[in-house]
């Protein structure tokens, strides 16, 4: 029985391969790419459990079990980076997440189509600028001696503030400039949701004498609530992912205590410090948490919206 099924499988497989060889030819480079560049590194993840030496290679390095994880959890710097990641994400959730929603609601209330298009064109722009430029602008603006911000503070008799070297300023600067860069562009998703709201709702509300303020609160906002919830779930799913490429540009040793996140910790211990095995263990720890969060987020959104994210 088993053999019959297997031989049937092999025969139809042969037929399908012969019939669709062109399609397999088309898909092959892409599948090979995913195997070589994304799946092969997963094989390299085993060095999180090995005493890895770059000369011995991945296979020949001896197993050490959970030693690297024990070392990590005893490492104050790693623990600090983990809590910094969560804290920065959470602050982003509180301060940055609502901004694109508010922006979309505000755009929707602008009646002059030309003004609205111009305003949108301008606030989307920073999304297309590299983080290096954004960091350059931030460093330039916040320079204690020549920066425009401290110059302006000087007009009010305030002494220069060393924004980039004082730990308590790192998070406000990071989140503030992230809002500047991304909030405008993120409003697109909400604007699309608003565009889907039925105009009849507004017409009947107007007949009932509702003010514009009331319509925003009672019609627009409730109608886009499903979108807001989905975006919130995605955001929570990405709780352990922060914009480390940007953090690397902005932080410095004097602000590590509030700025160092898991990814920057991995970068310093692994790529700059060549402790590959320890850094891989930290990465694996982060990736597993991320996977669980994203998976849970997806399950929840499937329940909430009946459409899954993936």
């Amino acid at each position, binding site marked *: 029985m088993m053999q019959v099924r297997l031989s049937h499988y092999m025969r139809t497989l042969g037929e399908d391969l012969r019939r669709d060889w062109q399609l397999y030819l088309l898909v092959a480079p892409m599948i090979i790419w995913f195997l070589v560049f994304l799946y092969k590194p997963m094989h390299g993840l085993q060095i999180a459990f090995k005493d890895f030496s770059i000369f011995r290679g991945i296979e020949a390095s001896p197993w050490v079990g959970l030693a690297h994880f024990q070392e990590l959890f005893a490492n104050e710097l790693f623990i600090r980076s983990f809590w910094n990641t969560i804290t920065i994400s959470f602050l982003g959730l509180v301060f940055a997440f609502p901004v694109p929603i508010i922006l979309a609601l505000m755009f929707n209330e602008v009646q002059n189509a030309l003004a609205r298009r111009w305003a949108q064109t301008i606030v989307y722009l920073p999304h297309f600028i590299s983080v290096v430029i954004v960091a350059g602008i931030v460093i330039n603006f916040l320079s204690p001696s020549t920066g425009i911000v401290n110059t302006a503070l000087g007009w009010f008799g305030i002494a220069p503030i060393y924004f980039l070297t004082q730990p308590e300023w790192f998070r406000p600067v990071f989140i503030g400039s992230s809002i500047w860069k991304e909030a405008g562009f993120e409003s697109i*998703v909400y604007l699309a949701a608003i565009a889907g709201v039925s105009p009849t709702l507004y017409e009947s509300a107007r007949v009932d004498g509702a003010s514009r303020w009331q319509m925003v609160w009672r019609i627009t906002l409730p109608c886009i609530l499903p979108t807001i919830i989905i975006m919130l779930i995605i955001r929570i799913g990405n709780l352990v992912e922060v914009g480390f490429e940007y953090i690397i540009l902005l932080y410095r040793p004097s602000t590590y205590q509030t700025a160092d996140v898991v990814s920057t910790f991995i970068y310093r211990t692994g790529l700059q410090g060549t402790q590959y095995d320890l850094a891989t263990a930290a990465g694996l720890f982060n990736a597993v948490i991320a996977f669980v969060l994203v998976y849970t987020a997806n399950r929840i959104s499937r329940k909430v919206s009946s459409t899954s994210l993936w």
Partner: protein
Amino acid sequence: MSTSNLYTRGDKIFGYANAFLLGLFVLSTLYPFIYILSASVSSGAAVTSGRVVLWPVDLTLAAYERVLSDRMFWISYGNTFIYTFGGTAMSLLIMVPGAYALSRKRLRGRTFFNLMIAFTLWFNAGMIPFFLNMRDLGLLDSRFGIIIGFACNAFNVILLRNFFEAVPKSFEEAAKMDGASELQLLWKVFIPLSKPAIVTVALFCIVSRWNGYFWSMVLLRGEEKIPLQVYLKRIIVDLNSNDEFASSLLTAQYSFETITAAIMVASIIPVLIIYPYAQKYFSKGILLGGVKE
């Protein structure tokens, strides 16, 4: 009856307040760009002493002359063009045919391939294993490594595949009647019909290539190979105005601040040129990609 007659005084105040607050946000988005532009064409002395607030002071192109005479600026600019166009071409060459094949329902193993690609959205090996893999492949310090190593991502594949799946069956059947092969079908029917999706993905690739710095910084060693963003990072972030190099720049005509401003402007200009297209297609792409699977 015009709509404005329907509004009460409260509604009008609401409208003005909204326009005012939104205007403030728009201006604060715009201000850094204007400031950087003004600083780049002002004299070094005016910028360092805080006299440049909005408009240029002591108009001069000295900073640009200094930047444009720097050999590394041109090398890195050229490299960025190579990575942007080479990388985008490579991405399309691999992902367009691949996504097309995956959109064909009769392809055996389709579910498995789809799952394999979607899984990378959920889980990836991370920075160090990726780096070691590039090293094992001999792709450290290699232009080709930068171009091939970041050619695909699951999001773009899914976006393209969904678009191909939405192409009406009637087009395909008509072409099949004429005896078209799968390759001809892709080339003559699907690619022309899916131009918006392909342009969207191309623009995603162009923008991320132009702006990417992290992996170029990590993987490339040779000065001759670094892209503009890495060069920018070295000047803007790694140096600061107290450095020796920076103070050597200090003259009355240009300063560290005006030089960095000029480099930033030079790097933003190409972005501004493709921005009108990018804006249009990106908003569509975001919404297309939002509905996955």
